[in-house]
């Protein structure tokens, strides 16, 4: 059948956990990149290790957005879906992220296990007018599968996708060998390649529409990296020497990467007995002069709060990475959300003097640790790096970031600060305690405490000492406010509507504004990287727009503003409503933003 040329398309592969969907995703990604395409990958990971196969919770899949230009987000709807069985197909249909004109390839190998269930799902698709093509693996492939222990459908599907996306077979086979080569015996490898070929032939036989995405020659060095890996390497480049953590999804992979890498750069990874101990050890080490970072997600953030408050009072630097996931409570460990914003900015008891940096993409992930270390050491206040499940797990090809190899924070390059819309802080910033020497410094002996103290560090409950401590800590925060430059704006500087977001929604907002402008909609976008404190000119910036609305992956409704909307309302006195405040666990989609913008501007 004909090959259709596309500038951008999206597809997904849905399988049961444990059958290698993620591996197929990795191979596809590497192969597409080797062929010169731009790719953005979002894995769909179950919350359990081995959920019951053929059940909705078993879904393990991969969404791949493919383009001939640089893409910033996972996009809108999938044009093509391969599903290993009807149950996971119907689960994904519930999410509503498909192109109604798209193609659904449903493997009917499991049909006899539950024919009624298959019929029901097919009926549902027919009712919605969806184009479902069923297929069954050929007998030879089934025999191969049986001979290698029943797992290998992922490679078969890889073959199908290779045909559909007109991939260079040699490149894909090369990537298969790179991925499995060392682990598989030569005869098993040969059988896998057989499955790949058979999948390719089957797709050919189905006479499917094929897609062609042009290759773009890349200039300069490129790297392929996901958010959490970029962050881990950023931690090393920023000169941190201790990572102290406790296992928690989706932050753990940072600890895994650093456990392998950090010792080679002279650092340590400490797996603490709990979340509290993890930040306690990092604070202890930073008091000793060792740049230290802790990482957490969801419940771990709640547990760390008391120590975060302590670090403010005791003026001990500390960086906390929060890879946000669905909440409240245990919530959805493997789904994305941006609902920790207020807990980060205002979480611990008493007054709050913290800085909250967010990351919008993998390059931000690499440089956020540098900025966080700069701010925490200059101000001796806790600094948050806010990532989320989506950013942490998305893979992307980026130009190789310029290395900084930071030792002394005063040497942080301007381009890193500018990326986060920040100017250099003043040289001499007043501390609550004048003496800030590190242990080992003769004559510099000093004690720190969570109790209120006077300027010498003596415990004091006198009114003047308390008020002064608050003023000094808050003045540190004001230094950041004054150092913040105007936030990033997409589109015109003044307009009918402004949509604002922070962290991982940047790509979707930027793309949505571009799409909306093409349709003549009078909308601009604004994105915040440092989200607390906020820049001083923010009120003036927001006042240039007739209406301001937020886009957040966090719950909000007409009676309860979502976190960013709440923060901006209080800081800028602007009536900001959520344009989109969804807590579905799924990233926001540019086209959905555009639809909402249209409704609002009607």
């Amino acid at each position, binding site marked *: 059948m004909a090959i259709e040329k596309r500038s951008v398309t999206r597809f997904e592969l849905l399988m049961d956990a444990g059958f290698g969907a993620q591996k197929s995703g990795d191979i596809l990604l590497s192969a597409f990149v080797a062929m010169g395409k731009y790719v953005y990958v979002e894995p769909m990971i179950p919350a359990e290790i081995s959920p019951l196969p053929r059940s909705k919770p078993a879904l393990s899949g991969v969404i791949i957005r493919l383009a001939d230009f640089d893409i910033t987000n996972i996009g809108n709807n999938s044009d093509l879906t391969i599903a290993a069985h009807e149950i996971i197909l119907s689960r994904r249909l519930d999410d509503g992220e498909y192109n109604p004109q798209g193609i659904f390839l449903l493997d009917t190998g499991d049909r006899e296990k539950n024919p009624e269930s298959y019929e029901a799902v097919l009926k549902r698709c027919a009712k919605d007018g969806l184009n479902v093509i069923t297929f069954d693996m050929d007998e030879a492939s089934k025999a191969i599968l049986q001979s290698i222990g029943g797992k290998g459908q992922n490679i078969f599907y890889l073959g199908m996708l290779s045909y559909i996306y007109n991939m260079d077979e040699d490149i894909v086979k090369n990537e298969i060998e790179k991925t499995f080569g060392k682990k598989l015996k030569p005869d098993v490898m040969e059988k896998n390649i057989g499955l790949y070929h058979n999948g390719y032939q089957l797709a050919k036989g189905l006479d499917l529409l094929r897609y062609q995405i042009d290759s773009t020659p890349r200039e300069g060095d490129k790297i392929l990296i996901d958010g959490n890996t970029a962050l881990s390497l950023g931690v090393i480049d920023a000169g941190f020497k201790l990572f102290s953590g406790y296992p928690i999804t989706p932050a753990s992979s940072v600890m895994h990467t650093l456990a392998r890498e*950090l010792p080679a750069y002279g650092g340590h990874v400490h797996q603490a007995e709990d979340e509290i101990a993890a930040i306690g050890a990092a604070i202890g080490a930073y008091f000793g002069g060792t740049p230290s970072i802790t990482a957490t997600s969801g419940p771990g953030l709640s547990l760390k709060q008391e120590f975060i408050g302590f670090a403010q009072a005791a003026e001990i630097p500390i960086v906390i990475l929060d890879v946000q996931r669905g909440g409240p409570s245990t919530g959805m460990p493997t789904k994305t959300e941006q609902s920790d914003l207020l807990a980060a900015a205002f979480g611990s008891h008493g007054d709050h003097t913290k800085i909250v940096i967010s990351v919008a993409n993998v390059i931000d992930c690499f440089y956020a640790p540098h900025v966080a270390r700069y701010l925490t050491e200059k101000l001796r206040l806790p600094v948050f790096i806010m990532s989320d499940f989506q950013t942490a797990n998305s893979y992307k090809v980026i130009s190789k970031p310029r290395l900084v190899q930071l030792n002394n924070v005063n040497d942080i390059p301007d381009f890193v600060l500018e990326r986060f819309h920040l100017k250099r802080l003043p040289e001499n910033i007043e501390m609550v305690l004048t003496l800030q020497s590190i242990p080992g410094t003769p004559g*510099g002996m000093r004690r720190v405490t969570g109790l209120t103290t006077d300027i010498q560090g003596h415990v004091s409950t006198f009114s003047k000492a308390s008020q002064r401590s608050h003023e000094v800590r808050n003045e540190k925060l004001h230094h950041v406010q004054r150092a913040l430059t105007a936030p990033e704006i997409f589109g015109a500087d003044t307009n009918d509507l402004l949509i604002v977001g922070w962290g991982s929604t940047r790509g979707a907002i930027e793309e949505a504004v571009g799409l909306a402008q093409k349709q003549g909609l009078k909308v601009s976008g604004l994105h915040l990287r440092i989200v607390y404190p906020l820049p001083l000119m923010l009120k003036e910036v927001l006042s240039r727009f007739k209406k301001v609305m937020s886009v957040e992956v966090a719950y909000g409704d007409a009676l309860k503003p979502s976190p960013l909307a709440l923060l901006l309302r209080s800081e800028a006195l602007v009536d900001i409503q959520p344009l989109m405040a969804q807590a579905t666990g799924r990233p926001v989609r540019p086209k959905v933003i555009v639809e909402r913008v249209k409704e609002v501007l009607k």
Partner: protein
Amino acid sequence: MTTPNNASPACATEITLKDLNTENPRWCPGCGDFGILNALKHFIVERQLKPESIVNVSGIGCSGRAPNYLNTYGVHSIHGRAITVATGLSLTRPDLSVFIHSGDGDSMSIGGNHLVHGINKNFNCVFLMYDNEIYALTKNQTSPTTRKDHPTSTQPFGSVLNALNPLTVALGLGASFVASTADWMPDHLGNTIKAAYDHPGFAFVHICQRCVHFDPTNFDLKSSSWYTFLKHANGIAPDNRLASKTETLEHDPADIVTAFKFAGAERRYFGLFYQDKNKPRYDEALRGITAKATKKDRSTLLDPYLI
């Protein structure tokens, strides 16, 4: 990280007790905490430890204030978490001497989990447990080590549980050093601190501490017949003033079975219960991993990710 230049110059002369003073401690007159503070000061002077190389770390409670009264480095941290702060320091700054000051509520109740893992990790520090068997700073509530039937402000009809025994807990957790002493026996307390300081690993020192304000009759200082000193060539010498007034018993600190017997007995025993100098140390192990790692240069950090 950078060190501000506002530290005063080092004094090259001998360290005296006076050098270790900061402000007058705000403990009740007669509190056992004074005895512990003084013993530690004497130890620092006797060994001529550099005050700048010492970090006292504490949690919350009357004991938590101790670091504020010693002119060394100090972190008065949050309730129950001193061990966590000390872990980070001990791991990254093996050149420093780390003392932890923690009460019975701080270490056996809110901080119990960290005590378990501090002992298990066996990182290098001296752990001083100020056991006054009561929550004092919060005003007389039952603690895990409060004796049964003793009335408190939260259990006015008498504490309902049997006291948790810190010594058997520590031994049961596999502590590499377990000693017990009391605030009112400066010689024994001093010798115990010495032995603990010289021990490589987590040295668990249990100290019977008088809370004269809330429980003045808990420890009978007029008589010595209610306790026994343990002695051994590898142990801690019985108190020079009190040894003659009560019994002393030979106990080999390598003998874990007898250690449990003494630790769990109704009677109080003071001395070194158990010591194992060869128990693996977490801080050493992690530094070993770093030392053994093939060094990489940050200039090639991203090269493995190139496509």
